[in-house]
């Protein structure tokens, strides 16, 4: 455990170098968000006072998008998948096979350190933005909602990491994983509720998507915060989310074992 704390500390120092990049990324990211919010405002404006779209009054809709931004800052993988793929391609993982260091835990420590720094930096522009829109930003419904939100964000982060890790391990079999990563990301972008709340989709499609792990990356934590998922539904949702995390962990371990057999240590 101590050695991974050490990896975490090194990760913090390494990612601190990118703080200005992170700041730019977070600040630039607010531009399309502003665009989307203006479009929604225009849609609500036509409908008149007290209108709601898909069960979302405008305040809830704006809060939804702001919370998506927060969850994204807390959980998104930044460079982790590219780095893992590069480690495999360049033969860098050979040294981990020789050392008493578990590669998955090592990467997880680095992912966590990256998130700590990114969230800290991103908080500056994001919280200013939320402060500016405070009239449209709802507090958590109640304390179970807040507690459930925190728990589900942690699970979402783990799930996000295991998905990215497994995608990157494809580098054992294919030369360039970036296309696979981008294709996966495109699906994730829509199916996780990043682009709009899943309730806006035709009900059959929304139900089908709930059977995939994607909504648990973003839509689920945000809905918990907004009090749209409560009581037994919340417990059940958290259980399913935890099951997906376990499945992701299993997949990552399984792919690693298969990959290592195929691995030829190029350049190592």
């Amino acid at each position, binding site marked *: 455990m101590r050695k991974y704390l050490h990896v975490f500390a090194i990760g913090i120092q390494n990612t601190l170098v990118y703080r200005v990049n992170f700041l730019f990324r977070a600040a630039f990211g607010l531009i399309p968000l502003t*665009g989307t919010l203006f479009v929604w*405002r225009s849609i609500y404006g036509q409908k008149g006072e007290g209108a709601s779209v898909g069960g979302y009054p405008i305040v809830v809709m704006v809060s939804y998008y702001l919370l998506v931004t927060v969850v994204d800052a807390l959980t998104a993988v930044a460079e982790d998948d590219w780095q893992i793929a590069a480690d495999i391609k360049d033969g860098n993982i050979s040294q981990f096979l020789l050392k008493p260091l578990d590669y998955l835990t090592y990467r997880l420590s680095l992912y966590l350190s990256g998130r700590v720094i990114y969230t800290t930096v991103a908080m500056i522009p994001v919280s200013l933005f939320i402060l500016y829109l405070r009239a449209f930003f709802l507090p958590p419904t109640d304390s179970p909602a807040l507690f459930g939100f925190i728990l589900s964000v942690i699970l979402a982060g783990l799930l996000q990491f295991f998905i990215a890790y497994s995608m990157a391990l494809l580098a054992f079999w294919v030369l360039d994983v970036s*296309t696979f990563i981008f*294709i996966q990301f495109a699906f994730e972008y829509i199916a996780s509720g990043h682009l709009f709340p899943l309730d806006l989709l035709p009900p059959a499609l929304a139900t089908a998507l709930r059977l995939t792990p994607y909504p648990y990356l973003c839509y689920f934590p945000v809905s918990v915060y907004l009090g749209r998922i409560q009581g037994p539904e919340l417990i059940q949702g958290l259980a399913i989310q935890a099951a997906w995390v376990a499945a992701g962990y299993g997949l990552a371990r399984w792919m690693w074992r298969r990959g290592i057999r195929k691995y030829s240590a190029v350049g190592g």
Partner: protein
Amino acid sequence: MKGSTMKSATRLLSLYGAMWRNSVTREMSFKVNFLLWIVVELLWFALQLAFMSVLYTHTDSIGGWSKWEVVLLVGCSNFIQQLFTAFFLTNLTEISEHIRTGRLDFMLLLPVNTRFLVSLRKVDLGAYVNAACALVVIGYAGHRLHLTPSAGQLIGFAVLCGAGLTVHYSLMFLLSGVAFWTVRAQGIVFGYYNLFNIARLPDSAFPRGAFKAFFTFGLPMLLVSNVPSKVLVGKLESPWEMALLIGMAAACFGVSEAFWRWSLRHYTSASS
């Protein structure tokens, strides 16, 4: 005088032809990858269209734009973005790398306009395919809107798309020029991608204010694909909108050229 500009233009064209052939050779050595990249881009294009169609299941108009008008707008925005990718994107993201490794020094020594070389060295072939797909979407949306554009409208559309392309190119070139001072400029360059996202939204959805003014007269994202689309759909409120886009394109190009010259004057090689 006229003869010599003609000559240099044909020389640049033949150079570009050579770079084209190089890129074809490069791409064809990874055929599956080449096809997969086209799929990736098509998927993101489909995603934008899906977003808009989901919005239109809950409303009939956004800022006075109907569903198929917005589809045409998204198509137009993607068309310009793909042309930008085809010609410039890879090259502009590599500028900071040229500076860091000192390769820019060699480029400066070659007997050709360095900006031309740096901007157009690599051709992204997949993007041509995607640009064609965007044209198909524009065509289909036009069909659903029962548009019968005149030759003038079509020429206007093409010219204004060119102006929009110039805006994207000049601004991104300007941003990548920041690499002369900080090597980590790539993050800033990728940040530009966020701006493409506003270019595909109908401008009339934005209320008057600082945001709209900045993205019209500062970084004219709300003009780039809105104005060409309006010409095609016949939504233009006044011909001044066309003049504004062309004027802004010229201004952006002028500023980027001035900045490039100024940067080169202050350039002290990284290597050697």
